[in-house]
């Protein structure tokens, strides 16, 4: 994950792509990762489907349901990734709800994720207070537990979370769930600036980023963008080429 800091030092913006593992069948995961890294993304979040994804909007929930119907599990995803022989050029992250990890065994998860080439984990329903549950085991394997901060995170909490932040900090742009939106609230820029001033690691904006005008709006206040629903939907509809302008809008050298 060190290369994320290098990127920041060079003044370049990161593009983190989220995909739902097994949407359309688990064998598609490989080609999706290959496509995205060729398209120039900075890192890839591999989402694990869950029956009750309360932080997600309809697009990702539907993709998760499709993956579950394909019989996709955390174990199968990790095995699939561990078996890859092509060159993985970008950091891979796992984004999963807590319950599949608990059922799998946190320690076992940490070990197998490491063998699968994962460098960081995001667990949206594991708040800072309970982070020990996973962090202890992830640290042993030298993996980061990426923390989320949101518009409702109090100043005191923000300080505490940022003090221990690793990899990057996932700054949520909306008070709500994941999913594409047209407009961003005006508080978002102020919030991003506040987080970035204090953060020792790069700050990436996520939730609702789907249009180039979102990127234009926040470009100067963040170190990168996380795009989920828009990519998931594009892969589902076989229109992934449509995402290229968004990736380019982020990763292209600053036009100014």
């Amino acid at each position, binding site marked *: 994950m060190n290369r994320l800091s290098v990127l920041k030092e060079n003044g370049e913006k990161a593009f983190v792509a989220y995909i739902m593992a097994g949407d359309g069948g688990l064998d598609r995961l490989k080609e999706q990762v290959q496509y995205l890294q060729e398209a120039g993304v900075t890192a890839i979040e591999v989402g694990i489907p869950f*029956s009750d994804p309360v932080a997600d909007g309809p697009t990702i929930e539907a993709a998760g349901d499709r993956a579950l119907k394909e019989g996709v599990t955390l174990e199968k995803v990790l095995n699939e990734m561990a078996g890859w022989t092509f060159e993985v050029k970008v950091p891979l992250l796992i984004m999963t709800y807590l*319950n599949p990890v608990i*059922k799998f065994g946190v320690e076992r998860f940490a070990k197998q994720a490491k063998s699968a080439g994962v460098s960081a984990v995001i667990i949206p*329903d594991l708040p*800072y207070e*309970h982070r020990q549950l996973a962090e202890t085991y992830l640290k042993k394997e030298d993996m980061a537990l990426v*923390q*989320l901060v949101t518009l409702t995170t109090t100043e005191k909490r923000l300080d505490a979370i940022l003090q221990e932040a690793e990899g990057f900090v996932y700054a949520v742009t909306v*008070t*709500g769930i994941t999913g594409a939106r047209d407009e961003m609230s005006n508080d978002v820029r102020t919030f991003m600036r506040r987080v970035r001033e204090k953060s020792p690691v790069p700050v990436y904006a996520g939730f609702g980023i789907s249009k180039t005008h979102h990127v234009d709006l926040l470009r100067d206040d963040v170190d990168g963008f996380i795009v989920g629903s828009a990519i998931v939907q594009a892969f589902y509809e076989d229109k992934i080429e449509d995402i290229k302008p968004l990736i380019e809008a982020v990763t292209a050298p600053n036009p100014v």
Partner: protein
Amino acid sequence: MTKVKICGLMEVQHVKAAGQADAIGFVFAPSKRRISVEKAAELAKHVPAGVDKIGVFVNAALEEIERTVREVPLTMVQLHGDEPDELVQAISVPVVQAFSIRTTADAEKLGRSVADFVLVDAPGTDYRGGSGHVFDWTLLAGAGIDTSRLIVAGGLNPDNVAAAIGQTQPFMVDVSSGVETEGVKDAVKIKHFIQKAKGDSMQETIEKVGFFGKYGGQFVPETLMKAVKELEDSYTEAKDDPEFQKEYHHYLKEYVGREQPLTYAKRLTEAWGGPKVYLKREDLNHTGAHKINNAIGQALLAMRMGKRKIVAETGAGQHGVATATVCALFDLDCVIFMGEEDIKRQQLNVFRMKLLGARVESVTKGSATLKDAVNEALRYWVTNVEDTHYLIGSALGPHPFPTMVRDFQSVIGEETKRQIVEHEGRLPDTILACVGGGSNAIGMFYPFLKDESVRLIGVEAAGEGTETEKHAATMTKGTEGVLHGAFMKLLQSDSGQVLEAHSVSAGLDYPGIGPEHAYLADIGRVEYKAITDAEALEAVISFSRLEGIIPALETAHAISQAEKTAKEMNKDEILVICVSGRGDKDMATYAEKLEGLA
């Protein structure tokens, strides 16, 4: 309050029994309780977050200590040898240094230790690290010990620990042989010791951290953390405010119509031929079930927090109706999420909610029942958290919900306790209540938890049978996991996907159970049984005809189990059933399922 450490643990079952302690100890020095680092790492997985894991060493090298800290992992280290100050200071985690105390001079040495904590122990005999002999407490008196870093050990047991705490007021007490039987740890003694050491403040401890044993917690997205913390603070404050309590009880009396009778069921008693049966009449509440007790309490709290918008989920519709009712009463905006499947089978309640001015949102995702309604209500709350209160209907969800809902429902058990003494001059022998999420049951049971003579039975839904895939018997068939903000028991697949529950009763159709119930099952205080759809429907008929009370389908599960339990009881015993609600809402189901009833 004095913390409790259980030391020398070697077995998973004892680590689990020590789940309510503040710290547990693993011995890595020569001792009959010595374990390997690998074994300790295995046991450590069963220790709840927030409980300290302390490794005990005698004259070990720094490298060995640090390696063990990493591998287990340990949160503290305890030293029993002649470790130099440089070693104590070099250790990366907080250190406890142990001293054998024979004289007042020994006691004075404690004050000079550079460790974070000092532990006093009776002089060792066979092994260094404590002999288990009783320590003379008076040696500590007058030695000017800083009790905020004092840990007392040596010869403590459940009978003397309260006295030891009273005399020394230490930071922590440490026990090992005092909770053993014939040299082996004893789960019952461990629990007993913790209970005695913590006295009546046990419940406060639980509430403080938001866990019941290892169950509970606040497993919610970051966006909700501020609201959950605010709620926790507001509730803590309101709970102790006499004005708030007065207002809550005012509405219970003047609006809900409490107190409700504890009716002696004469014909049922005769028919079953066993114990005297009493019925706690929650069916007589305004809106027809116990749910309104909680809805009133939470609505008052929401207004106190300045929130005038309410979101809620509902299964059978009773909580939805109770919420819509209080929202009408207090002029609050109200959105209710309800599974499409439940909307079909509880149409009367849907219309009641609409008539009361609530917006009812149909949930078509997943199994389209209660679990999915909670998901949608949580998503709505995440999106509208700044001005909306989530009025959760059962003893579920992130802390403080399970505690708060229990407290608002405890009026059921409190009244019952007073009433049964008025009727019979003593406490009942057995109490039964149905369990979905578990709010009427926890409200009924909670005031009786410390009355060990009272047998408590929670009754869950076995649907078409616990041997089939169509049931909601979380206690019977569930395993540990996280759902809707809490660590609890769940019906889930091998890969951690939450399964769909099934019950003819919409109110019990939930694949999880409140965290406090999971804890009460683990410590053996409450038994949980399962009743099938068919058994519940039979109970509906017999109960209606014997007592002239048509029960809700949920309640019928408790009644059916009561009939079974009554068969094992004598005529001079007393059994209480919590009649959580009346059956009007279930008339369509009854008409369909009992068609041709003669």
